[in-house]
């Protein structure tokens, strides 16, 4: 469902954005021109009044944004797994001793050999969606693999033995 965010100008202060959640709570963010942000939670009884206001510095608001934004990729895969029956999705790590370390996606020919596809690679905080054949794996990468149950198991075996 599309979230409808309302924007209101606060003369001399900045901008306010707010919306009503599916649960019926109104929340908002005030962006002051000097970079300070306020997260506001509206009162359940009096929807015009703030029940709580938290002031965040620029750095703190970036942290909150990351915390709210980062788990979304993992979440989407979880949903994909639920949606398509008979299809398995799994995150498989490349161990330091694995023969896949320093190999490219093309070389390993995972799809040809197992029928399962590598749809994304997670490296540290970064996510590489739809890696190309020249994508080079490193130790510690986590491959997001989609395929049949057998296919995904075959990929796991390949990662260990080559």
């Amino acid at each position, binding site marked *: 469902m599309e979230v409808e965010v309302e924007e209101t100008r606060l003369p001399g202060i900045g901008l306010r954005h707010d919306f009503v959640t599916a649960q019926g709570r109104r929340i908002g963010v005030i962006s002051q021109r000097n970079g300070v942000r306020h997260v506001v939670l509206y009162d359940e009884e*009096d929807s015009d009044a*703030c029940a709580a206001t938290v002031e965040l510095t620029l750095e703190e608001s970036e942290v909150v944004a990351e915390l709210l934004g980062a788990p979304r990729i993992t979440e989407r895969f979880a949903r994909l797994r639920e949606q398509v029956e008979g299809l398995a999705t799994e995150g498989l790590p490349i161990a330091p001793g694995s023969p896949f370390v320093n190999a490219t996606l093309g070389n390993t020919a995972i799809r040809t050999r197992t029928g399962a596809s590598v749809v994304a690679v997670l490296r540290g905080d970064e996510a590489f969606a739809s890696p190309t054949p020249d994508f080079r794996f490193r130790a510690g990468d986590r491959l997001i693999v989609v395929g049949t149950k057998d296919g995904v198991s075959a990929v796991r075996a390949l990662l260990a033995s080559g």
Partner: protein
Amino acid sequence: MNPTARLLLELGAVLLGLGAVGRFAGRIGLSPIPLYLLAGLAFGTGGLLPLEAPASFFATGSEVGVVLLLLVLGLEYTADELITNVRRQASVGMLDLLLNGLPGAAFAVVLGWGPLAALAMFGVTAISSSGIISKVLTDLGRLGNRETPAVLSVLVIEDLAMAVYLPVLTALIAASSTASAVYSVLVALGTLAVVLIIALRYGDVVTRFVGARSDEVLLLRVLGLALVVAGAAEAAHVSAAVGAFLLGIALSGEVAEHIRGLLGPLRDIFAAVFFVFFGLSTDPASLPSELLPAAVLAIVSVATKLITGWVAGRRTGVGPAGRLRAGAALVARREFSIIIAGLVGASVIPAFAPTVAGYVLMMAVLGPLAPRLVDPLARRLARQAAARRADPPAKKRSHDPRPRPSGEPSDREMS
């Protein structure tokens, strides 16, 4: 004692005293301004502890204080914001000015002070203090409230109206006859129009002119330019305060944000000096006899601002609780009332300054308190509104005499 030693000792003692007073005010959750005024009364002629040496410092410092107060106020607004606000909220703004200004004017007429003092009193009661109000809204965590944009819009219109009103008043006070009054008002308004157009259209040029990498250079340039513009405005009877305000509007973007940070501490010091100076120049002996009329005026002004807030809130579609809160937020008056009293001086009516002093003392105390005081009533209104939403009066249940447990909204009971 050597005069330099005496000046430094007395000045230092005053500032230390203000520091102590400010800390005390902060502890009990009040604005320190009324206490600064009282301190000024105590140190002035006829006060408890009359000071001689720093008087000239305070006289100059208070002029700089006005310039800084208005410059920083202007920095908070962008030209774009001002224009859209006037277009959308003009009717509420007019209502606000008339509803709150006319009682002040009527007060002066009833006391037989004459038309000039009536015009001055119009301004004293009409214009709220944006400084107190935005601080109180921030402190109480109400910036996000849905009635707050309505409150802020009223303040923007008042500040702009002030930019037109002060030049007219300044020109009228300076004029000696009706003909010269008309002439000097026209000159003042003409100058204002030119400066306003420069501020709104060519703000980026002005901003580039003061912009500098070094904080020190930036501070000196902005302060210098502000004093030059304020002085020129004063010479043209536009009033120094308005000149500084328009310069603040002209400065925009990141530079304006940065200047605000740099000027903040300087503004605080000179604003304190400004409030002390007003106390210094008022004779405390003349104050007690004016307290009763000032109190009457204060009560009327609280009521008229409550009505303004109610109307402004209803226009933006907030519930009764929000409308009440909007009115209470608008109650505070402070710097403009004193600037006006300073302009009028003792020359017109001797009772003018002490009356305004008494009035500002009350309003500056009531201003930050009012939003807190109406809170229980606002909560009750909100509960009633919530109950009405859950139980439309058409249903039989609305006549149910059983009292609702407080704090438990009725819509939760039903779900």
